[in-house]
């Protein structure tokens, strides 16, 4: 164990202790019964327990119900544009690696218009914690089918029912090079939701957490089969993953030993359609982070920034003297 110096102790002795209220900002406008509330509660609890300083924490989102998340966090936030939460978050992390960056994105935001960014963000493996709020429908725009809507979902854009099989965000993520953390949670088991959120936060690299959440307004019965039958939820436990309390295990008896370092098994479990696997599917702490690979020791002074900008702008500058010489 490294001993702390007296100065290090001095620097830490005045650190503040935070309460849940320190992270709360405004009353969420989500519908009553919306799963986003559960995610918000879990994340605020994480911030408090980990003592994350609000001014050092950023929540970045795209567009959708879930993307209102930064409004309800009393931290820095960036409510971005459709599908662009991940590149914005990557930019924040690149420029300010000292900040803790979370991303809130929905099934439409991430898996439809933002799909390209999603794939490449996984590959870049920057140290971000990404929550995919998957309610399987476009809720903010009042019920259109999303890429994760189950086949046959009747919506304003698919009045006769959707024609395609739903996209599985877990298998897609697990298929991308450099993937380092994939987990699945459900909003109706808050204890496990919190444990997963916590594990994701502690993972260095891009942690991708898909959270199945209810939309009581537009798809109120969609998740009932899994919510009402605990045996249809399969908890993934392992000494290197999550371990569940006796109380929870009494209700959720369907548990599977799964080592999160086993990628092949993770892909197999992720492909399951009847059962909903809940827990950490894959974790590899050894995948390098892009910001570490590209880290520069150079101090970003005003002179350095100015020189960089000038070098870029000079590429598009026409130098009259040089032009004359060329013509001559």
């Amino acid at each position, binding site marked *: 164990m490294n001993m702390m*110096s*007296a100065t290090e102790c001095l620097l830490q002795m*005045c650190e503040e202790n935070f309460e849940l209220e320190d992270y709360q900002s405004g009353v969420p406008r989500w519908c009553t*019964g919306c799963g986003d*509330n559960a995610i918000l509660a879990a994340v*605020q609890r994480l911030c408090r327990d980990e003592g994350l300083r609000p001014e050092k924490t950023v929540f970045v989102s795209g567009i959708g119900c879930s993307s209102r998340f930064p409004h309800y966090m009393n931290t820095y936030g960036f409510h971005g544009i459709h599908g662009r939460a991940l590149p914005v978050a990557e930019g924040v992390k690149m420029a300010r690696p000292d900040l803790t960056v979370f991303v809130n994105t929905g099934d439409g935001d991430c898996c439809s218009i933002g799909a390209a960014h999603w794939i490449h963000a996984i590959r870049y493996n920057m140290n971000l914690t990404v929550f995919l709020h998957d309610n399987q429908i476009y809720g903010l725009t009042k019920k259109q089918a999303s890429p994760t809507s189950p086949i046959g979902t009747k919506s304003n854009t698919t009045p006769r029912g959707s024609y395609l099989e739903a996209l599985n965000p877990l298998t897609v993520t697990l298929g991308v090079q450099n993937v380092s953390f994939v987990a699945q949670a459900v909003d109706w088991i*808050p204890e496990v939701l919190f444990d997963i959120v916590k594990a994701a936060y502690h993972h260095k690299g891009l942690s991708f957490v898909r959270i199945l959440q209810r939309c*009581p307004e537009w798809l109120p019965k969609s998740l009932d089969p899994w919510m009402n039958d605990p045996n249809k939820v399969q908890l993934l436990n392992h000494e290197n993953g999550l371990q569940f309390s*006796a109380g929870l295990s009494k209700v959720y008896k369907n548990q599977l030993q799964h080592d999160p370092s086993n990628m092949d098994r993770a892909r197999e479990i992720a492909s399951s359609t009847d059962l909903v696997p809940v827990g950490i599917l894959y974790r590899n702490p050894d995948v390098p982070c892009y910001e570490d690979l590209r880290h520069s020791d150079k*101090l970003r002074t005003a002179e350095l920034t100015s020189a960089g900008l000038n070098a870029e702008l000079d590429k598009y500058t026409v130098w009259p003297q040089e032009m004359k010489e060329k013509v001559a």
Partner: protein
Amino acid sequence: MEADTQAHVAFFLTGRRPSEHLDAVDGLDLRPALFAGYRELARLRHDFPLVLVADCADKQFVQSLSGLTDSALAFAARGSEGERIRKHVLQLEEEIRTLSTDGATGMLSALWATAAGRLAKGADKSLEDSLRRARAAIKVDGELANCDAAMPARLLRHAWNAVQKQKAEAFRKDLDRLVLKLSDILKADFERSAAGRSAKHLKESVGTGYGDAFDFDALSHLLAKALPKDEFPESRRRRIRELLAVLGAQQFFPASDAAAKKAAAAKPYSFFFDTCAEALSTFRKRMPKLIELAKAIAIAELEIDGQYSESKHDALFEQFGANGLDPQDLAPFPDYLVCINAEKMQAVEHAHLMEILSSGLPIKVLLQIDDILEESPNGEGNLTAGMRSRQIANMAIGLNEVYVLQSSSSNLFQFRERMLRGLTYRGPALFSVFSGASGKASGLPPYLMSAAAMESRAFPAFTYDPSAGPNWASRFNLEANSQVDLDWPIQGFAYEDEQHQTVSEDIAFTLVDFVASDHRYARHLARVPRDRWNGSMIPVDEALTRERKGLPDKIPSVLMVDVNNVLQKVIVDARLIREARRCREMWHSLQELGGVHNSHAEKLLAREKKAWEDRMQQEAEAHAATAPAAAPGAATAVVPAAPAAASAPAEQEPERAPNEAYIETARCSTCNECTTLNNKMFAYDRNQQAYIADINAGTYAQLVEAAESCQVSIIHPGKPRNPKEPGLEELLKRAEPFL
């Protein structure tokens, strides 16, 4: 007893030569027999000379010439021309070694060129080609250092410079970051001020190109309205300016190029000293400045992080460093290096050295010993055999928090990583080095002399690293010594006898062999002419194992060679044997510290072994006594019960009254259904999960409705509290699934 043996015994006991058949060794120019093969050291490939590699802070900061040559040959001497290149390059290496032995100094590249020039005379073109190829494969350069009196200090200072350079780079980087960030805070403050939003400043910030495109007065007027309400406190502004002043004026490290350009930075301090007294007083004199800088760095970190709170931190930092700084706090700052010579040390300097070592200061001390065979001032002919340095090194080890490295200079290259560890250790370090370069006693080169001191246990090599672990096993390391588990190392020795037949034998290299090469102790030795050799002359190591009782019948002797490499036998007097015995006892103590033949461990082992044997004996006896009574496979055999399956303790559920309403709070998913229904009856706890805050704040109907609307069915309405509530019968029916 034969006459010759009588004479030998007399010499052994008195140191006087009563017989004409015993020769004084003065002037015979004898050396230990094992040194016979080392007459021309320059022709032998060994670690020296060393190359002190420039700009390198890892273990490659020093390399041996032979190691560099081998690496170059591995790369360049390939294919059909490989053998030719190898031959030429090894010739060059020998030439460089000869130059260095003759006193030539300079960079490897320069000596390479000189040596190549010498070899080129009369040689064909192929030599030039071989050397060019090998030279291209050597990517480093540096000063050459031979094993002489100056080498230990040169090598240690070179390593120290490399470590300090690395430290300086890290410190400067950190300092530049702090200065930039603090300056940015002041800049941001200015931009928010009235002056920063004045038309004049706004115009200057846009530049000349678009100077006419804006109405800066209007812009300034608009921005003035938007000035932030929370003012930047003047005290903070002043504090940041003071921090910048302290950081800019520091003299512990050279200023960065950028900072030096902006302001003429003060000349950095020197950290290299020739005396402990000077180093100590300088350290103390600079302490207030060091504390001021460390404090400024700590406050700057808080300021940059936006964490500095005057109400909390002012008082804390007021007394910063009042009790000095601990080793972790001192670690980023330069270490002091003191190079002293044991022979020149006076009592006062000795006291200062002890003060340094015992105070935990980051001062590294090289204690160089040139002569470990000086005579003791206590008595005629007594040896000190490294006592002076041994005392200091042992005392330093006893202090527990000092990194101690003891080594002969011949072994320093092998200890290069340990040197770096000592130099990077957070606290004092003592490097006790025997140079072998006294020049007083023998014609042997320092390399050979120092190697012999280590081999003979006169100056064993070891390290004591307090940072390596909590116990002696991890901290103390004796393994660099030859055949560490023996009293004396045994070496094979072969010679040709009078019949030109090769004779091989194993001989021990003892303290006496080492001392025998020193002319000052010639009076303790007497050569026995070959025709007088007899069976009573036994090797010193054998004599040392014999018990001392009565008149000796065997006389210890050592094998030596003269200038013509003719083997000689030299008998030794009792005084030298006494010294050898004392040296061996000291070696035994070191062995114990190093875990070799540890008496405590051996005692414990013997005790445990005896206890085990007794237990086995008792069991055997008990078995023998009960065996006939026990039928094979008898049903009475006791099978040990399998350990109960480990089961997690069930969570304790709170006790409830049978009709009580409750919520399984831990399973609440914060969906707001119940709190929307009645936020007085239902509330969220500190984890934002629902519980019944006030059962009387609502009706039973609301409880039932909440249970029905709860998405995860965790609300249990219990039985109604008010028997007069309307519609109870129907409500009880609806509540039934949730009870």
